[in-house]
C-alpha cells in the first residue's frame, strides 16, 4: 500500500509542470498547428492577453523591454538566427498587438518565430 502511494507521490512530483505555471492564461488560436518537436525550445515565450498586454514568464513587460532582452540575448549568442521567439497570443486580441512585437523583433534580425496554437477539441496535430 505504502509503495503504491509513494509511487503516486513521485508521479505527481515529476509530472506537475511547474514551468507551465509561469505562463499567463490565454485563449490560444484554435488551429491544429504543427507537432511540437520536444528538443526544440524557443528562447523566449511571450504571452499576449486579449487586452494586448505582454507578459514574459507571467511578468508584465513592455515591447521596448522585451526587445532589449532579445537584443541582449542576440549579443550573448552572437547571431539572431540562434534566437527564436514563440508568441502565445490570445485569439481575441487584435493583430496590431502581435504586429507591434513582430516588427520590432524582425528589425533585430530574428526571423525564427512561431505562434502557439491549441488543437480544436477532438483534433490532434497531423
Amino acid at each position: 500500500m505504502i509503495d503504491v502511494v509513494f509511487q503516486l507521490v513521485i508521479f505527481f512530483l515529476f509530472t506537475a509542470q511547474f514551468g507551465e505555471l509561469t505562463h499567463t492564461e490565454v485563449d490560444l488560436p484554435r488551429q491544429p498547428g504543427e507537432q511540437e518537436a520536444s528538443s526544440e525550445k524557443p528562447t523566449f515565450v511571450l504571452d499576449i492577453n486579449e487586452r494586448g498586454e505582454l507578459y514574459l514568464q507571467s511578468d508584465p513587460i513592455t515591447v521596448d523591454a522585451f526587445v532589449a532582452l532579445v537584443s541582449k540575448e542576440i549579443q550573448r549568442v552572437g547571431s539572431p538566427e540562434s534566437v527564436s521567439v514563440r508568441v502565445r497570443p490570445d485569439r481575441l486580441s487584435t493583430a496590431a498587438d502581435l504586429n507591434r512585437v513582430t516588427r520590432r523583433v524582425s528589425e533585430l534580425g530574428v526571423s525564427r518565430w512561431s505562434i502557439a496554437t491549441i488543437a480544436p477539441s477532438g483534433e490532434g496535430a497531423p
Partner: protein
Amino acid sequence: MNFRPKHEDIGDASGTLPMTSMIDVVFLLLVFFLVTSTFSVSEDRLSAAAKSQRVGTGASDLTPQIVDVMARDGVVVFAMGELATPDARELRRALASLPKEPGVAIRVHDDATVAAAAAALQAARDAGFEKRSYVPADAR
C-alpha cells in the same frame, strides 16, 4: 508517578519507523498534489519567418504569393489577387493550386484578429507551403 517510557516507545527510539504517522504524511502529500496539479493541455505551434514589409524585393528571389489578412466592413477577409474570402478553407484551396517554391507571405493588417492570422498561416501550411512568412502590414 511512573515516568518511565512504555515498551513501544522504547521500540520507536531504537529505529523503527512510525508507519501510521508516515502514511498520514504521505497521504497528505498525495492529496496536496492531486488537488494542486493542473494537467495542462499540450500546445502546438505555427512557425513562420518573421519578415519586415519588404517581401521578395531581391532580384534573385522568386516573388512569394502574398495573402492579405484584413478587416473589411467589420469582417476579417483573406485577400489574394482577385480572391477575397472570409473562409480559410477557400483560401487553402486557392493556395493549394499555386506553385510552392516561392513561398507565401501572410501580410497581416492591424485591424485583423490573431485568430484570422493563425487561420491564414494554417491554410498556407495545409496547402503545402514550406516557406511561410508573417509580415506585419505597415501601420496606418
